[in-house]
């Protein structure tokens, strides 16, 4: 059930209506049922995977929580016994209590490790088995071994990367004592499967989502209306911009030999626009639907294309994924025993600046490698991830140089310099995204290189762009749509655009505005017969 299908829209209308009609006690079970119905339509066989991940992480969370409760009780008991003098110092003394506490923590860590390993194993098997086979075959071929391993027929369950990460974060947070484990299996199952965010995030944390998810919300016209406004805006981005530009992107990358040089630049720009409109549009729909149900979901974007550098860009793009990698990979690696040892060693043996940075870069390297491979089981994504790492590392290493430059040239508050920085970020990110587009890494480098070796910028004006599945009128719609997108982003710099509209525009005018926007989607949206139903790009990750 694609977000852009009639079935999905019918499903949401029915679910929202039922949610507000049903008695309080039936609300969250309805959401669970709805989420599983939604997932069933994504593929009935996939239910097995989500159930598997849910059961594993639920049990792990519960065991950790029970162990903690038992350990705390025993710890208090030991303290009491020592106080009352009923136990020996060897059995209940400070040292014994410390040993006991550490032992129990180790047990919980073991449970956590088993839980997240099993959950990640499911993800690894379905997502990376064939990639592993591909690489083994590559190695066999390199050593002229004639034997090849056959690829397995494994379909990637929709949203598995998202819900697995969400479930893993739950287990870790229970271990870290950030919140209690959820004892009700079905409530936990709802947290993992909550349908609006199931297929492309945001990756929510249990502590952020659970309270509102299980709270029975009563109908409020304002809440539903605001959610609907967000949904409409999301559909505008997805259907009017992302899906309209899609044929041109596909045409340009399907026969790369025909579209070199300036056309690669077009791929960069078109794909950046498509991906942004597609992903942020999908997230707007997700957040809007959740909002219609009274459930606030974390924001995932903060106008990323206004970032002045790539590190900032990644703090503003797919925020919940970025914070997930920071909290559950970067920090644990940074404070792990081996890393602390390395840190100590490098500070002692390397120059001061380098010594401080080596452990950070090593942890960053792991994070970006994981980010890359999380996006897709291919070298393209790995190189893309590492490309981000390299750019961030270089820009950090060049910081002293930048500082010297800024000492000489005052750029404080300069709009021109800020625009330069934003433009540079857009170009860098768009160039890196070429790895998403072309079929393999060498081809991507080759095509990128043609931008500097094939000087065919004039070809952009000779009508070739009109043979990519888009006519003049389509480009006009795209241009106007992008201007609107930009204008809304600009307006959003100083706060929520919906809040501003609510304050400044009387209700009939606001209504008119969104009616026109809806009409624009209905008329100019790329959907229905004659268009290929396009799923959201992030669904496949």
């Amino acid at each position: 059930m694609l977000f852009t299908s009639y079935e999905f829209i019918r499903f949401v209308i029915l679910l929202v209506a039922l949610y507000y009609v049903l008695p309080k006690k039936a609300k969250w079970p309805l959401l669970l049922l709805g989420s599983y119905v939604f997932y069933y339509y994504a593929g009935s066989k996939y239910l097995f995977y989500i159930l598997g991940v849910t059961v594993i992480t639920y049990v792990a969370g519960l065991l950790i929580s029970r162990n903690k409760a038992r350990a705390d009780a025993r710890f208090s008991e030991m303290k009491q016994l020592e106080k009352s003098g009923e136990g020996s110092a060897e059995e209940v003394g400070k040292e014994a209590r410390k040993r006991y506490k550490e032992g129990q923590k180790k047990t919980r860590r073991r449970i956590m490790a088993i839980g997240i390993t099993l959950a990640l194993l499911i993800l690894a098997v379905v997502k990376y088995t064939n990639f592993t086979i591909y690489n083994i075959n590559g190695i066999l071929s390199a050593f002229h071994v004639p034997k090849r391993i056959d690829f397995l027929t494994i379909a990637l369950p929709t949203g598995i990367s998202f819900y697995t990460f969400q479930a893993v974060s739950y287990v870790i947070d229970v271990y870290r004592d950030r919140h209690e484990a959820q004892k009700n299996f079905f409530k936990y199952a709802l947290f993992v499967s909550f349908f609006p965010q199931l297929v492309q995030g945001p990756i929510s944390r249990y502590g952020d989502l659970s309270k509102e998810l299980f709270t029975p919300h009563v109908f409020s016209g304002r809440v539903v209306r605001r959610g609907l406004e967000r949904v409409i805006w999301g559909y505008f981005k997805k259907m009017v911009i992302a899906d309209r530009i899609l044929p041109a992107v596909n045409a340009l990358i399907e026969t790369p030999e025909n579209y070199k040089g300036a056309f690669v630049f077009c791929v960069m720009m078109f794909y950046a626009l498509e991906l942004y409109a597609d992903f942020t549009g999908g997230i707007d729909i997700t957040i809007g639907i959740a909002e219609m149900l009274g459930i606030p979901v974390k924001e995932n974007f903060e106008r990323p294309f206004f970032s002045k550098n790539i590190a900032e860009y990644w703090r503003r793009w797919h925020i919940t994924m970025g914070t997930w990698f920071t909290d559950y990979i970067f920090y644990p690696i940074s404070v792990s025993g081996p890393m602390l040892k390395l840190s100590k060693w490098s500070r002692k043996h390397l120059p001061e600046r380098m010594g401080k940075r080596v452990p950070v870069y090593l942890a960053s390297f792991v994070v970006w490698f994981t980010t890359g491979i999380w996006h897709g089981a291919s070298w393209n994504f790995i190189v893309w991830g590492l490309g981000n790492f390299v750019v961030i590392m270089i820009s950090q290493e060049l910081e002293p140089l930048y500082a010297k430059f800024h000492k000489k040239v005052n750029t404080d508050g300069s709009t021109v310099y800020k625009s330069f920085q934003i433009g540079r970020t857009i170009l860098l990110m768009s160039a890196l995204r070429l790895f998403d587009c072309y079929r393999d890494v060498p081809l991507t480098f080759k095509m990128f290189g043609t931008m500097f070796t094939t000087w065919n910028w004039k070809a952009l004006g000779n009508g070739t762009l009109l043979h990519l599945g888009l006519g003049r009128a389509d480009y006009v719609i795209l241009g106007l749509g992008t201007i609107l997108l930009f204008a809304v982003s600009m307006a959003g710099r100083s706060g929520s655009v919906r809040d501003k509209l609510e304050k400044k525009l009387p209700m009939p005018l606001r209504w008119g505005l969104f009616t026109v926007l809806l009409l624009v989607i209905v008329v100019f949206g790329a959907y229905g017969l004659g268009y290929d139903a396009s799923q959201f790009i992030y669904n496949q990750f």
Partner: protein
Amino acid sequence: MAEEKDSTIENVAVTDAAGESAKGTSTKSGRGKTIRNVALVLALLVLSGCLFYLADLLLRPKYMGEVTEGALTAEYYKAYGDHDVLFVGDCEVYENFSTVQLWREFGLNSFIRGGAQQLVWQSYYLLEDALRYETPDVVVFNVLSLMYNEPQNEAYNRMALDGMRWSRTKWNAIKASMCEDENMIEYIFPILRYHSRWNELTSEDFKYWFKKDIISFNGYYLRTEIMPAGEMPPPRALGDPNFGDKAMEYLDKMVALCKEKGIHLVLIKSPSLYPHWYDEWDENMEKYAEEHGILYINMLEIAESEIGIDYSLDTYDAGLHMNVTGAEKCSSYLGKILVEKYGLSGHKDDAKMAEYWAEVEERYDAAKAGKTE
């Protein structure tokens, strides 16, 4: 307990019209405000609906230019009086029978509810739809479409069904007709289907935005060109000589419906040379008609000998369809049988009907002479 508490979101001040209903309305002024707001929301809903409807009307194909068949279905509702004869079927009825000839020669008020590649179930539902308004004496069904047992083509579906007035019959017709990639919602809101015409709009779309011309002559699609019939492609070997289950199911339903309403059903095979009408199909039809006590006429067999069709003059597309002279000959032949067999007396003495037909005849003669309006 969390379940017992109201959410933080729902506690947000409800300030606008849509949200007012959640607030207490115990006081008179509160109630008055709520009523005002509800009225405002309703008014805005109506206005928004009108906006969408206007866009919908603009974007729908008008079928007033080169392809006009899509306009035929809706023209039925504008026709005058109850009909003596109602034709249902595909292009072999709406191009091969002249309703004007039936009026001129026999005084019969007839209408053709035919469409391009109109499938049996579409003919059935168009008949059922017509019976909501009238009960003709005779229904003539052209059997060629029995060769199709599955939905065929979205464009033809739309041409046959878009013009129908909404009723349970239309709903059923759509359900029976939809191809795999079609969706009911796009029939309910045609703008969802035709939205992509925004960059194909022509002056025709604006001209016929709200009102269309009548392009047929009581469902008859007049053609004046002449293209002699040539050699037809050899027929492909026939596998199963029986018609499909779904096709026969709807023919059975048509027979039952006509019996229930006391209507004489006549099955015909129009004298078009292509697609090939197999002998086995003909035998099946004869047997079926005999079993059900229905008249079946294979006009193809007797086209030249009894009807007087000259395939070098009476077809406009090399034998696939009749031109106006061929259609008039077919109508004369069939009309005579209907009058004689079912005692249809005609309405020449009905002044109002004569007036209606005079107008149709005037247009018809002009079109026949090549002077379309």
